[in-house]
């Protein structure tokens, strides 16, 4: 047994987190920064933060993830990191030549109280920021929220730094895709364009973290939202934020600052959430939905009706980020699966409330926990076994020990490819999710079938 110390007996824990279902803010900020064109993320803290975040993102995307660090020493931790950051800005603009440096803080620089805004102003005054180049920043203390919070803070920071209003609407629509894969961002963009809407999608990691092999390394790949596009977000006709935790703050900030009306939708995972997204887009932009999209929707529904018998009544345990789990649980419920244990590491009351509302009609009470961990999820599973586990790669230890069919979702996925190239959002992504779920359920059915009932056709 891999997790041999995990047993059924649940003892209360107030102080000890075991096998977390979240990580810290800065990595989310780094990921969001990579979705800006010609931008180098910068970690204002010890070297280890930057090394850890780059390693984790690299293992997940299998693509270059470049970022710099302020390389704090004991001295800078005592006297403040201003000198380190100013020097870093100079070194970066001279050596690596980005257009934008996106600085995020860490628990170290936050604890000592470095004022990054003031340091950035000093760097400009000292002539360390060449003309036309930018230093943007977000405060991302690791001891608040989770990686999702960091993503949200950096996304808001990029909108706030660049956006301007000329008073003339540009006819574009802001889409904040949330903490999703580059493939998901591309899929969202495809659907929006298919509806004849001209989007500004930010951040946009498509063509950055799912790039091609060409034999030529580009430190700043072709993708990413440009500074010009971010500037134009203040002139857009509206904003749709996908995922309340990751995207709402940026959308609301644009609304407050430039009166760009915004609405917050769930991530379009599954049939109903995608329906709501498309419908909201249609109404907000005043367009009609093309038949091509209605056809995709029909295909997703077709798979559900074809394979419903294998989904029906199957018990599922899930771990992931709130923005993902809310529509995913809704999706599973819509195909008559039975989510029974649901955990996110990210703190926040809304998550449990939404899940409880969504599952109120079930004949049982779901186990749900925000600021929970995988140890707790595993203990729940030990007490009430499930037919399917959906979690990031760390879930495979539970899946192996307890022989549970397992579908990888969320971040990080460290042992499989595909997630950065194929979406799990919108109708096509829904089809892919169902294919993945069916594959593991039917593989299990085949594996366990006695020879006399081993079926050719399922």
């Amino acid at each position, binding site marked *: *047994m*891999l997790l*041999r*110390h995990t047993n059924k007996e649940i*003892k209360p824990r107030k*102080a*000890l*987190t*075991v*096998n*977390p279902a*979240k*990580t*810290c803010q*800065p990595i989310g900020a780094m990921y969001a920064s990579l979705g800006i064109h010609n931008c180098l993320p*910068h970690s204002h*803290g*010890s*070297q*280890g*933060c930057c*090394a*850890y975040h780059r*390693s*984790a993102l*690299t293992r997940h995307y299998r*693509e*270059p*993830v470049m970022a*710099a*660090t302020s390389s*704090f*020493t*004991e001295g800078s*931790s005592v006297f403040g990191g201003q000198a380190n*950051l100013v020097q870093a*800005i100079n*070194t970066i603009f001279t*050596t*690596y030549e980005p257009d934008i440096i996106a600085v995020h803080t860490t*628990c*170290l620089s936050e*604890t000592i109280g470095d004022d990054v805004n003031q340091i950035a102003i000093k760097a400009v005054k000292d002539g360390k920021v060449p003309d036309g180049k930018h230093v943007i920043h977000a405060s991302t*203390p*690791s*001891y*608040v929220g989770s990686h999702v919070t960091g993503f949200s803070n950096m996304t808001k920071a990029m909108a706030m730094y660049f956006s301007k209003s000329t008073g003339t609407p540009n006819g574009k629509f802001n889409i904040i895709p949330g903490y999703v894969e580059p493939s998901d961002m591309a899929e969202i963009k495809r659907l929006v364009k298919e509806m004849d809407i001209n989007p500004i999608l930010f951040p946009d990691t498509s063509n950055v973290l799912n*790039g091609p*092999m*060409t*034999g*030529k*390394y*580009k*430190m*700043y790949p072709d993708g990413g939202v440009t500074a010009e596009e971010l500037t134009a977000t203040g002139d857009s006709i509206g904003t749709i934020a996908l995922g309340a935790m990751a995207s709402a703050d940026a959308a609301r900030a644009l609304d407050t600052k430039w009166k760009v009306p915004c609405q917050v939708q769930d991530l379009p995972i599954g049939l109903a959430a995608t329906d709501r997204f498309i419908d909201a887009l249609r109404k907000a932009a005043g367009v009609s939905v093309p038949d091509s999209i209605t056809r995709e929707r029909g295909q997703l529904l077709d798979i559900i009706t074809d394979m419903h018998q294998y989904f029906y009544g199957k018990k599922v345990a899930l771990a992931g980020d709130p923005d993902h789990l809310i529509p995913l649980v809704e999706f599973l419920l819509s195909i008559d699966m039975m989510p029974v244990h649901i955990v996110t*590491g990210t703190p926040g009351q809304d998550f449990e409330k939404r899940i409880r509302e969504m599952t109120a009609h079930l004949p049982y009470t779901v186990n749900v926990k925000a600021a929970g961990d995988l*140890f707790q999820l595993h203990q729940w599973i030990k007490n009430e076994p499930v037919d399917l586990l959906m979690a990031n790669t760390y879930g495979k*230890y539970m899946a192996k020990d307890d022989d549970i069919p397992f579908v990888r979702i969320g971040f990080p996925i*460290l042992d499989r490819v595909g997630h950065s190239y194929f979406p799990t959002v919108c109708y096509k992504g829904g089809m892919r999710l169902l294919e993945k779920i069916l594959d593991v359920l039917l593989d299990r059915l085949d594996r366990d079938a006695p020879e006399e009932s081993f079926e050719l056709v399922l």
Partner: protein
Amino acid sequence: MSDTIKDTKTIRPGGVDTLDPEKIKKELLSRYPAKVARKRSNQIMVNKKDDTGKTPVMGANVRTVPGIITQRGCSYAGCKGVILGPTRDIVNITHGPIGCGFYSWLTRRNQTRTASDADDNYMPYCFSTDMQDKDIVFGGEKKLKAAVQEAYDIFKPKAISIFSTCPVGLIGDDVHAVASEMKEKLGINVFGFSCEGYKGVSQSAGHHIANNGIFKNVVGKDDSIKEADYKINLLGEYNIGGDGFEIDRILDDCGISVVSTYSGNSTYDQFANSHTADLNTVMCHRSINYVADMMEIKYGIPWIKINFIGGKSTAKSLRKIAGYFGEEEFIQRVEAVIEAEMPEVERVRLEVKKRCEGKVAMIFVGGSRAHHYQELFKEIGMRTISAGYEFAHRDDYEGRRVIPDIKIDADSRNIEELKIEKDDDKYRSRKTEAELAALKAKGFEFKDYKGMSVDMENDALLIDDISQYETEQLLKLYKPDLYCAGIKEKYAIQKSGIPMKQLHSYDSGGPYAGFKGAVNFYREIDRLVNSKVWDYLEAPWQTNPELSAKYGWE
């Protein structure tokens, strides 16, 4: 990214040897701000060996310039991740916000094997106090104490250790006080590490803090003498990708008994008993040479440098161990093992060599592997034309003879040096003075490591703490056939069309140590440098963009 060098062909017309390394060094420094270039120039050295084996002074173990994209991590990573990560039966609690614990959770490929499910194994677990803002404001000691108590109540481990992250030191949480209080209360060993990420200049500081902690808090707690012959400790072997298992297999075949490994596949009890071994063998000099020194002073265990990377190196290291114990029957047994293992190694080596001969590699990793792996490349006819360490010190480049000359700077001074004295009760001379003298007379070298530089060619480029910018320049100028580094570097290199091998995690491969490891490595390198993938970089319409075409049946 850089286009300072427009056309690499004009610079490398006739192979790497026509390149002037001094010019390359200039080129690597040309883009930096003047101050940064000055600092980096002390860490980029053109190798020159004199008759005595003296090599250029390397400005190693110094701060990384902020803004440089470095390979390096932090002290916490070195302490919790590298040194204590591979020990399975200690509950390692990270005291800090969640990230540090999360990132060091199962990511280093340390393997461990227990006799049965009844044995403790916490390696697949991650324990953290997940500090929140109120803990930062009001202090985290209370939460830490509660976390240790909960860990004890749920898991009943034989030991608990606590690892400090950056904010812990800044807000003044005393992890050592909490540890001793809880040790008293729970009746098990509880100890803390002040390995805040900002300490030192790299992971190396964390290795030191970890090893000091183990030496102070665990070593010497179990005096029982294992009934076995030829008892050694294997220091600085972390069982990544199963390296340690392969080494153990070979040592076992030879009849050599491993009392403890620091720290691959290790247990608390092994550390506690490790002072009873009769010889310390040091694999990774950087991360652990000081432990060998301390054990020699306190307990009388001599140490030798060994290297199990490469077939010949493995054989040589085994002979060294046999020579130390010196019994003829034992020496014969070791020879028999080498004789049985080497034919397969040679068969594969010669087969692979045909396809790899003359190719060039670059290695930028760690504190020992950049040196050790050159041996494997040499065995298949490949040259290592540029190499450097991520977190090594001068002695790892220039050999231990420079240790007295190393200046202690502010960053090193903050890392505790233990004052070690002879333990009158537990000290035991393993060899008489006469025996030691006889061994030395035969050319046997104790506590010696000559460093990497002396084993490299003249004019090879030695680069310490290489940056992303320098990496890209090297690729453009030299176009090596293979580049070895870590996960953060991997894909930028691969995207450049150059095969890349990770020598930290082995890219999910391994073992590469020992005889079977050498075979695995030869085959892996063959796969990488002779892969067909690189022939497909251009689509047909890119190779021949002309629009003229004819129909197939014309």
